[in-house]
């Protein structure tokens, strides 16, 4: 396999015993809302920065897309520390969407990512509809590929989840963003709701092009030795393998509720996990907390998906999309 060549639309898998003779051709390309990606693996927002730090560990050109940490119209300082705590099979975070603001993002982070042969999905956060519109308008002038709208962060008091847990608010903010967005709009849904399909339908009515799910599940951890909350924010977002079955279930439900393509995420740590999401109905997956456990997790998952396809005679990844009815 030639890892260096990223221009192939189809990767040629050769059998070691047969030298360079192509044995089978597999297609891992996916298309989300008109954006073609070389494979169905991206990063979950907030776990990968803008890729710079992980660039030491991963050839970013191998990723289908890089989804950046949420960016707002102005710099945000985030929450007090401690911002994270480990939990069984996962972690709780309350970073509070610290970000350098859209100006720095446009002048520094986008040019960095443009060096690589990968798609750029920019996660957008805000406190008011106007904040989101502001960022989306600025991004309209840039060369990024898609926008992922964070209406589901559990760690900021205003904006974020306040939009993501109310169907009317989701429809409204989606339609306002669609009015000014030049790139396809992915709405990122919160699992902290009674019925996620209601939120998915609201985003669809508002004109969303795709959905990301799930964001973290609101949780709490107590430090029994110090008799206090483990993160300064008291509550935080639970992520990691502990939440995966919840996420797979929600992807499955949403896929039957709306026609929009789904980027599935929530505790994906290996190729088998990613394939669960794909078979449940996701067209793409995002790797988050696993990056902390293993900075090369994303490429290992891409390799693992290809290996699975090869082993099981799957020629096109699309054959697996929602194959479990």
């Amino acid at each position: 396999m030639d890892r260096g060549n990223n221009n192939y639309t189809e990767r040629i898998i050769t059998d070691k015993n047969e030298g360079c003779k192509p044995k089978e051709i597999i297609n891992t390309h996916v298309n989300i809302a008109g954006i073609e990606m070389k494979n169905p693996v991206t990063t979950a927002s907030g776990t990968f920065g803008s890729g710079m730090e992980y660039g030491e560990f991963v050839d970013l050109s191998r990723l289908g897309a890089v989804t950046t940490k949420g960016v707002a119209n102005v710099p945000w300082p985030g929450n007090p520390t401690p911002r994270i705590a480990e939990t069984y099979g996962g972690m709780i975070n309350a970073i509070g969407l610290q970000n350098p603001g859209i100006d720095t993002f446009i002048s520094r982070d986008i040019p960095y990512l443009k060096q690589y042969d990968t798609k750029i999905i920019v996660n957008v956060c805000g406190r008011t509809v106007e904040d989101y519109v502001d960022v989306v308008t600025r991004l309209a002038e840039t060369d990024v590929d898609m926008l992922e709208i964070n209406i589901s962060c559990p760690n900021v008091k205003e904006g974020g989840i306040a939009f993501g847990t109310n169907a009317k608010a989701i429809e409204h903010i989606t339609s306002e963003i669609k009015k000014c967005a030049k790139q396809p709009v992915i709405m990122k849904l919160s699992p902290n709701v009674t019925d996620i399909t209601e939120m998915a339908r609201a985003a669809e009515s508002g004109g969303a092009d795709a959905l990301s799910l799930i964001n973290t599940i609101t949780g709490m951890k107590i430090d029994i030795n110090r008799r206090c909350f483990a993160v300064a924010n008291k509550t935080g977002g639970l992520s990691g393998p502990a939440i995966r079955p919840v996420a797979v279930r929600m992807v499955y439900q949403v896929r039957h509720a709306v026609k929009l393509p789904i980027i599935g995420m929530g505790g994906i740590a290996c190729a088998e996990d990613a394939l669960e999401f794909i078979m449940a109905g996701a067209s793409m997956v995002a790797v988050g907390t696993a990056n902390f456990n293993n900075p090369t997790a994303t490429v290992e998952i891409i390799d693992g998906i290809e290996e699975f396809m090869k082993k099981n005679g799957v020629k096109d990844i699309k054959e697996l999309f929602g194959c479990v009815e």
Partner: protein
Amino acid sequence: MKRSKTLCKIISKDYLTDDIVSIRFESPDIAASAVAGQFVSVYTDSSSELLPRPISICDVEPDKGLVRIVFRIVGKGTAMFSEKKEGDYLQIIGPLGNGYSEAVASLPDNSNVIITGGGIGIPPMLGLAKSLNNGDLCDNKNCKINVVLGYRDILFLNEEFEQYGNVYIASEDGKHGTKGNVIDAIMSGKTGNNASDEENTSTVNPGIDINNIDAIFACGPMPMLRGIKSFAEEHNIEAWISLEEKMACGIGACLACVCNSTDVDSHSMVHNKRICKDGPVFNAKEVDI
């Protein structure tokens, strides 16, 4: 060549106290490139404890390709590492972070420095004392090294510091050296060796002449570092401190382990610096702790 987790073979493991463990592992790359004050991320083999444990590098032996870490068993992850045996492997990424190289480069020749560590902040200072003594981080600036170590009760590593400078000790219970904290020890100059302290009683052992100190290097609990920062400001001494915070990625991406910075940081664009990437060593003036 991209970096990745590496399996490093454990060459030796010793308990320095009931709960403080010293492990030497093989890693020619880390041994060759690490500078004092940097750390390694150590990963558990468990699928439940997912986050790396940042552990400071205590010492390196580049000729043998060995790295030494000394850590306290404080939770599940460190307990798992402590249960490893010689010949077992640790999953490691490192070296990470910014060590003391900038701090040392800023020292004048023939400078007189204090290296101070409190509790489990002591181990990285051994590597710094050795580097300064050997001139590893600079063209032998001929430093005079005063080592001040603060303990709760049981001593560890103190004897290993003696080859690099005068060692002064503070203990909370007063059993060793000065009763109190490292600043009390800096001011009183007790060595912790009770016999020689009694013998020397101020006339022979001059202690530390604080007016002659060019820099303080410190690692330890936050109250100690706050104390060192204000002590240094009061005496107009440069201070370099090593911070810690709960980390997730360990490489500067997740923004979990931030500290407040005095000025707007050029990366974050807010008053936050990343301890894992911009630190863990900071000039005390850079950070608001």
